[in-house]
Every structure is written in C-alpha cells, then in structure tokens.
C-alpha cells in the first residue's frame, strides 16, 4: 500500500478512528495489526521476515539484559547482527556480489557456477533491519535496557508510518511513546494532517511529475541527449529525489503525529547546505546519524590517526552507498561523498586563505550563496551516478555535460509535463524560502485562518489538477 494510493486514503482514517475509539491498553494491538496489514498489502508472505527479525532481536535483547558479562552480551549482539544482516544480504546483495564474482571469473576464463537467486526484494528491508539493529546495539552498549513487552517491541519494529522508508527511529525515542497514553490533541492532529498534505504535494505534484522527464532522459539512451538536456535532467532528479523522499517522510511523520507520536525530522532544507558535511546533517538525517553512531564511531571516528580517519570516512560512505542499492553506481556515489569530505578536510587551510584573499569574509552573504551553489553542484555530480544504470553511462553523461557537448539542443519532451515540472519547482522554492528557521508546518500554524485555508485549498486543488496518479513508487522503496 503506497501513501499516495487510494487504499491509504481509506486505511488511514479508519485506523485513526479506531485508534481514538479504543482505550489506551488496546491501542498497541490495533496498531500492530494495522501495521502488519499495511505491510502484507505488498506481499503477505514477507511478514514472516519482519516477525523473524522481531523475535530474534527481542530474545537477543532480553538475553543481553540478563547478563553483565561483556563476552556473553557480545554473543547475542553477534546473533542479532548475523540474523539481520544475513537477511539483508540474502535478499538484497547476494545476486549483486554473485554476478560481480561471475564477471571476474569469466574475465579470467575460470569456471563459476553459483546460481542466481530469483527472489523479490522485500520492501523496506533496509529500513527495518537497521531499526532493529540500532535497538540491539543500544542494549549491548547499555544505552537502553531491553524491552520486555514483546507486543510493544513488535510494534516498534513494524510501526506502519515509518516501516518501509523511515525515518529510522531509535528505540530510546520511539519505544517509550508506545507506552504513553496519547489523548486527542488538536494541534498534533491538525499539524499532522498539514504535514501529510504538504508531503503528498511534494510527492505527486513535484516528484512524480519530474520523474516523467528524468526517466525519459536517464531511462532511455542518455548518451544520445545533449549536454544541456542531461544537466537539466540531473537538476530535475536532484529535486525529484528530494521531494520523493522528504515527501514520504513528511507523510510518515504527519501520520504518526496525528496519533500523537513524534518521529524524528529527516530533512532540513538539504540543498541550502554550505558544505558537504552540512549536507549530511540535513539529508536523510535518520540514516546519516545511524551510520555515525553505529559504524563511524565504532571504527574510531576522527579520534584516530589521520589516515585511519580518512579511511573511516570512506568506509562509512561506501557502505552507505551500498545500503542504497546493489549496484556499483551506488558504491561509487558513496565513495564520491567520502572523497568530498576528505578533500574538504585537506583543503580547509587553502580555502580559508582563498576566502580572505578574495575578500569573501567581508561579504558573507555572497560567500554563502557561492558555497551553497558549489555544494549543490557537487551533490548533483553524485546524483548522476546514483541515477545512471551503470558507471560507464554515468561517466558518459558527466563527460557530455562538462565538455559542453550539443549545448544548444534541449529536449523538452511533452511540453505540459515540462511546464508542470517548472511550476512545481517554483512552488517548492517559494515554500522552502518561506520556512526560514521554522518548518513549513510551524509557519502555516502561525498564520491566520484565511492564509491557512488558502494554503490547504491550493495544495488540494493543485494535487487534483496536476498531481500524477499512476501510483508511482517512492524512489526509496527500492531500498
């Protein structure tokens, strides 16, 4: 069931009605049933994987709580890691590594006969396995005691607003909320609906509309297009993936808020970042903090010799790239971001001297704009690899853009899609600028009723007029 599907439009109100009708002690059962039903709408049999992951981690958490011996606790942690990562590897990465190995063996004319594993990738597996792993690692580290209530823990693993595409919630933040009684709160309810509306707008009006153009350029034979077309398609993809993913996050956070639950913010105007480091504090925050806390810090972070520090950065970002997809393009994308950070660290003294020489320190406004533009374009360079089908195609696209090849020839495609896309981008820029330090929901909340209702009516009517309703999959569902 997709958030932008008609089924969700029926499922969600029914769930809310039931939620607020039931006494608190029955709510977790209802939410658990609703969450399992939500997931089973994709492929019913895959619920077994979530249940298995839940039971293993629940048991491992309890066992870790029963002993103070680090050696024994580590045993249960390893069990959780092997089970969850084993599941993830089997369904998501086995074929990728298998085919890569096959190519290597074939290259050396050696025999290789490991068969292809023909299985559908379970939706959201990368998200819920990371969520449960964060629980077992936190229990191991003593950050949190084990959860004794199996039902509440199962709900933590499968809570439907954030089950299939995040935000990846920490147990210390989400688990206690399931035990707390949530009375009906007008501000939360309306604020949640506002967020859902804005998320839906970003998804169906902006992201899905942009994807029509991007798929046409990147999905066909991109090398046949001009450099200008490829550049525009890359910009469009940058907006598309942002609106697709942040739109989904907004709907998830909004849906939870309607019920009184607080999920973490996942995006904070990432394309206004003034550096790659800042970008990763604003983009997919739940994932980047997960990698920081459970991989980067475990490797030693930056409290190690310099070379080791740079290696840690590369490892974290390469693994992050691999998390996004089983393709060398994602690995390269991750590597590129790791490289950006290392280069930024190495060139800090030079850049500071340059800033002073060019008098940018006296014009911070202009300097910030330049930093934002450079950061945005570095990110876009990474998106080329993220979106392309292969590294060679991505290289060809980059070459065409940077050699200014055929720059006079812009492919528009179907004119109205292009115009709607530009309209959507204009609305997005307007709203993102209006937000300043607050998020859009707080901004709207502080306005008068006329402004608020005009905003709601505008979003609703525009969704009906130019939203794309072919049930397009959220991009991050492939993870």
């Amino acid at each position, binding site marked *: 069931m997709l958030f932008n599907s008609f089924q969700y439009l029926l499922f969600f109100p029914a769930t809310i009605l039931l939620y607020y009708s039931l006494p608190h002690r029955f709510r977790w059962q209802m939410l658990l049933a609703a969450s399992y039903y939500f997931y089973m709408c994709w492929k019913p049999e895959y619920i077994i994987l979530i249940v298995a992951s839940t039971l293993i981690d629940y048991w491992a958490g309890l066992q870790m709580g029963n002993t103070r011996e680090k050696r024994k606790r580590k045993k249960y942690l390893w069990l959780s890691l092997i089970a969850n990562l084993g599941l993830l590897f089997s369904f998501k990465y086995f074929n990728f590594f298998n085919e890569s190995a096959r190519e290597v063996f074939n290259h050396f004319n050696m025999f290789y006969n490991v068969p292809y594993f023909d299985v559908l990738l379970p939706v959201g597996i990368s998200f819920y396995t990371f969520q449960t792993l964060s629980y077992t690692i936190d229990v191991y580290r003593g950050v949190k005691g084990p959860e004794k209530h199996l039902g509440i823990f199962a709900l933590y693993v499968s809570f439907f607003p954030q089950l299939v595409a995040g935000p990846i919630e920490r147990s210390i933040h989400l688990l206690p909320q399931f035990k707390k009684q949530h009375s009906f709160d007008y501000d939360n309810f309306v604020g949640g609906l506002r967020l859902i509306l804005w998320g839906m707008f970003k998804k169906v009006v902006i992201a899905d509309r942009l994807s029509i153009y991007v798929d046409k350029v990147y999905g066909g034979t991109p090398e046949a297009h001009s450099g200008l077309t490829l550049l525009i398609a890359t910009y469009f993809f940058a907006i598309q993936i942002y609106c697709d993913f942040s739109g989904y996050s907004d709907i998830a956070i909004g849906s939870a808020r309607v019920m009184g639950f607080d999920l973490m913010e996942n995006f904070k105007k990432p394309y206004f970042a003034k550096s790659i480091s800042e970008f990763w504090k604003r983009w997919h925050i739940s994932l980047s903090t997960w990698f920081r806390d459970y991989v980067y810090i475990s490797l030693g972070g930056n409290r190690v010799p310099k070379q080791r520090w740079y290696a840690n950065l590369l490892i974290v970002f390469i693994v992050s790239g691999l998390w996004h997809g089983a393709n060398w393009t994602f690995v390269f994308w991750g590597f590129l971001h790791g490289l950006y950070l290392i280069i930024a660290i190495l060139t800090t003294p030079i850049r500071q001297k340059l800033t002073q020489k060019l008098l940018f320190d006296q014009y911070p406004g202009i300097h910030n704009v330049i930093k934002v533009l450079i950061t945005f374009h570095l990110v876009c360079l990474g998106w080329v690899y993220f979106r392309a089908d292969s590294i060679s195609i991505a290289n060809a696209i980059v070459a065409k853009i940077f050699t200014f090849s055929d720059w006079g020839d812009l492919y528009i495609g179907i004119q109205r899609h292009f115009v709607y896309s530009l309209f959507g981008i204009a609305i997005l820029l307007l709203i993102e600028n209006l937000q300043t330090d607050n998020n859009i929901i707080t901004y709207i909340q502080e306005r008068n009723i006329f402004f608020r209702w005009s905003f709601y009516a505008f979003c609703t009517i525009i969704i009906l007029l130019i939203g794309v*309703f072919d049930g397009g999959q959220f991009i991050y569902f492939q993870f």
Partner: protein
Amino acid sequence: MADNSSIFNSKSKSALALKMSVFLIFIGVIDFSVGSLLAKLYFNAREGDFGGRINLALHQTNDIVIFGSSRAQDRYIPDMIEQQVNHSVFNAGLNGQSIIFHYCLQKLIFQRYLPKWIILELNYSELLNNHGNDNHKKDYERLSILLPFAYNDQVRSVLQEGDPFLRIKLLSKIYPFNSHLLSILKFVFKPNAQGAIGNKGYTPLNGSKIDKIISITKFQKHKNLPEIELDTLKLAYLKKFIDNAYRHNVKVIICRSPTFELNTADQTFHDRVYATYKELFRKLNVPFIEITNEQYSIFDNPKLFYDIKHLNREGAEAFSKIFAAELKPFLSKFSQKNPLTAHN
C-alpha cells in the same frame, strides 16, 4: 483535572469535526466550480492528444473511421484517401493507445453515429502477451484519457476494470481533467495549432530521426525477442471491437503498415507475429490489408520515416496513396455477415 481534560478533548474533537466538515464543503464547492469550467472548455476542444481529438471524432460524421495508435495518427491522410475511394474518411488514431481504448472510442462514436467501415491499424505488439511487464496496468492507466467520458456506462465499466475505486474518485469534478489544464488552455487560446481539425485527425510528423536512431542503437544491448503468445485480455477486446461493429452493421478491416526495420532479426520476428495475426483474422473472417516493406520497396527508404515506428509527412503521402488503392476493392466486395457468428 481529568474531567476537565476530557471535556476539553471532547470540545476539541467537536471543533475539529466541525472545521473539517466546513473545509470539505469549501473544497467541494471549489472542486465543483473549477471542474465544471474545465468540463465546458474540455468538451469544446477539437484537437490535442489530451482528448480534443476524441471530441473531434465524435463531432464529425464519416463513412470510414480509422482507429489505431500514433501509427494510425501519423500515416492515414484522410484527404488523399477520400479522393481515391470517394467516401469521407476520419483518422481517429490516438498516440499511445491500445485495443481497449479503440473499443471504448468505438462505443462513443457509435453512440453519435454509425460509419460504414472502420479500419483498425494494428501494431505488431498490439496483441502480444508481454510477460512480467504488467502492461495491463499501463494500458488501463492510459485509459485515463477517457475519464471525462465516464458518463458513458460502457466506457465507465471498462475504466472500472482497471480502477475499482473509480466511482469514488469521480465524485471530484476536477479529477477527470487531471494533467489536462494546460492542454485545455492551449486549445482555448490557439484553437487549431496542430491543424488536426482541417486534417481530419491526421497529424503529420516532419523530418527524420532515423540516422540518429541508427547511430545510437550501437549503445543498446541486443534484446532477446520474446515468444509469440497472444494476450487474452487484448484478444477479448479485439473480438468485442469486431463484434460490436458487426452488430451495428459496420464493416471492419484490419491493416498492417510498414515499420523501419533496423535488422533482419526484427523483421523476421515482425513477420512471424503478423503471420499469427493473419491466421487469427482468417478464423474471424476479418479482411486484412498488408502493406509491408517487402511488397513496396519504397518503404526501405529511411527518408520516409520519422523514427522506427512512424512515417513522416512524405512517408504518409506515399502510404496513403497505396492504402487507398488497396482499400478500394474491399469497399464494394465486403460481406454483410458478422464474422464472429458466421460459422454458428
């Protein structure tokens, strides 16, 4: 305190329920107003792939109506065909559509008037089963162009096959015109931009991209050609299309027209597919006109093609002349019987 909070909660819920009800009415009024205006403008349009072409087809009466996808739209020039066959002709081809759409359009046209003959331009992949591509979903999604015509019971029942929630969605007056706003406005300000009204549905394509296509096919991996298996849903709609025509005493002729063959493997495959279709049409007792590159070597000339599947203006002129000559004998000889019941 607990009592006060529950009273507060109850008041908040009531206030929210009232506000939401008022808001829904507010949205409903805007939806009705905007939707009604769009409907008025939409049904006045007479060109454009968004549905103006459908309106044009419904507001003309012609002896011969040609159905098909963009491959009908690009090559059947009504004026040229009319001159040779001495019957009025209309090109009702529409980009990206399949037999399910043609059946619905036929229903809409027959509600207005009955032509004497209908020609169905059949693409080679039209009736093939495309395993794993979920193309029925795409075919039904493309039928969204017919949403404004859901007032027709039969069209609506076809649309509901692809969308069980359609009845609820059609409560919105704007929804049927989703993504058509600019096209509708374009027609309002530039009523005959494409010239489709004067061209009676024919949409010429100018120039040729064949050289570019040939140069980029080297980037493409060679695809294994699929097994020939007919799609049961589309076959069912083809039979409905033919049967509906004959029940109204309208004769059906099916046509194969040229494509630009990039290689002999593709050409052989296309020939095999059409051989299968030919056998099918023979059993259905439906006349089948074949105009291929093999029969008419003029279509080996890439300059007549806009791309692999479509003819450009020059190609359309050459094709229409040949088609009219091939069609003429059928118009007088055609049998009155319904071929689907002829053997009962």
